[in-house]
């Protein structure tokens, strides 16, 4: 049995993620203002009044921009991790199953990829391709392919030695059937847990790239971009940077808590069959 404390942390994390997801989905309806609407008269309003979280230097409503910004954060991170999971997972599965020199070579390429910090690799790719949404997804996905390849390969190596794989071959199953019909379902829990944990990293990398100016172009609201813009006025009007920073923090924290909980739940040592 797991401690109740750990279980409730997972639930809190889940609620945080759910809140961000709802904010992103419902942004057009629940945002009180147009996120791009400028109003010189209302610039740098402190939180309270009509603007619950205040306004920025162009008089734009920060709450509305945060709600719309959640869409960018979630789209980019979900897209990137989804892509990394499919590509990296397939590389790991096939490489581990085939083994030999191909496996050795593939894993060395993955090690080279792993040796770059995600942010640096993301920076290089976005700088080369240009900062639009699709390139952002590709850049962040590239940084996460190697870990997914590793997490898929390790259990594949041990599973392919199990008798049920040999039974499949004796029964005339194709390699593709054995690989995707029998080995994949057995490694999927590990890969999905990994995906949750890496979603948090993807959110962070996306925010960091936007922070250094490699996010979607203004006036599209992004959490990282808003934090950067707020930095200039951090002493006079701290709410500009604090609220988007807090949003990033809460989403990353929530994803990590869910990921930890899922990891414990799928740990064979803790799981009771």
């Amino acid at each position, binding site marked *: 049995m797991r401690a109740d404390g750990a279980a409730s942390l997972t639930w809190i994390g889940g609620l945080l993620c759910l809140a961000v997801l709802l904010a992103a989905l419902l942004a057009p309806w629940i945002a009180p203002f147009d996120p791009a609407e400028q109003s010189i008269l209302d610039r740098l309003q402190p939180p309270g009044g009509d603007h619950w979280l205040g306004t920025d230097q162009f008089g734009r409503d920060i709450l509305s921009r945060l709600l719309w910004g959640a869409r960018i954060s979630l789209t980019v991170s979900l897209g990137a991790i989804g892509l990394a999971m499919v590509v990296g997972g397939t590389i790991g599965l096939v490489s581990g199953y085939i083994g030999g020199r191909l496996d050795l070579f593939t894993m060395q390429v993955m090690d080279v990829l792993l040796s770059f910090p995600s942010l640096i690799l993301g920076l290089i790719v976005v700088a080369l391709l240009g900062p639009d949404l699709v390139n952002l997804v590709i850049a962040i996905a590239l940084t996460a392919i190697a870990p997914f390849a590793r997490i898929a390969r390790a259990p594949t190596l041990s599973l392919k030695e199990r*008798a*049920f794989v040999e039974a499949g071959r004796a*029964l005339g199953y194709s390699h593709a059937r054995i690989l995707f019909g029998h080995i994949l*379902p057995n490694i999927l829990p590990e890969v999905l847990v990994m995906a949750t944990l890496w979603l948090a990293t993807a959110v962070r990398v996306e925010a960091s790239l936007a922070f250094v100016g490699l996010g979607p172009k203004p006036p599209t609201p992004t959490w990282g971009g808003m934090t950067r813009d707020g930095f200039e006025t951090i002493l006079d009007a701290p709410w500009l940077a604090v609220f988007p920073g807090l949003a990033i923090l809460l989403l990353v924290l929530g994803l990590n808590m869910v990921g930890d909980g899922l990891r414990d739940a799928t740990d064979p040592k803790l799981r009771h069959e």
Partner: protein
Amino acid sequence: MSEPLLEVEGLRKHFVTTKGLLRRRRVTVRAVEDVSFAIGAGEAFGLVGESGCGKSTAARALLRLIEPDAGGVRWRGEDVLAARGARLKALRRRMQIIFQDPYSALDPRQRIGAALTEPMRVHAIASGAEARRRAAALLDEVGLPPAVLDRYPHEFSGGQRQRIGIARALTLEPELIVADEPVSALDVSVQAQVLLLLRELRRRRGLAFLFVSHDLSVVRWFCDRVAVMYLGRIVEEGPAARVLAQPLHPYAQMLRDASPVPDPARRGTLPRIRGEIPSAAAPPPGCPFHPRCPQAIARCTGSLPRWTALPAGQGGVACHLHG
């Protein structure tokens, strides 16, 4: 035995690995050196020997689960080792395998029903409700209720899983079953049940068996003929009753004498087996058994004994004492 179902001729499988951290050297493990035998339709053929003698490797090589390095395997005269694609798939229907470890033999994430109907779909034997009906019938044949279809492997005991594994091997209606130590991982009480089931299936379906085991009493009870393997070679072969009761080869004699006899009066009378089985990476010259053989003579160190056939269907032996 009129026309053999399966003929194995000079089968060889060596595994090459590299050893050592700084000075890497190649080590060749001669798992199967030269193995020949034949199994007739409906015949139970036993392959016995200590662990590491190559019996499981030989069984896997003839099923093409491992590619042998040399030799020939013929199924009703057809070359098994040359078969590719559809030919190989068709041959796989004729020969199936049941495994020693029932826990790793089933995919933990696949329901029993799916595990039993998948082979039928792959070979286009049956699908949908018909496949499910057949699966239920197979479960009934191995003594399990149809409710098992919707359960996962972890819900079953070792003996039940072994029954499911047997049912899966029967889905393609094979003529030969390779049973690789099918009961040695099970409790003794369960062993007897599974052995009775296998014998019943053999009788009812006319199945031939290649029964790989180190348990001589089980082999003697189950098999018609038996071959004794030592270091990748068959040293003696013949009718099970003859080979296991009056073996000619000193190694087979040693195995016989080392088998426990359930008689309190003979407690503590088991003779000790001399020495360890040598490494298959560095087999001794001459007869591979000579370093442990109590009856070794000068010739044994120098040359490999030839296969000598015995008269009147009593099999054969590879030993200088009987050459």
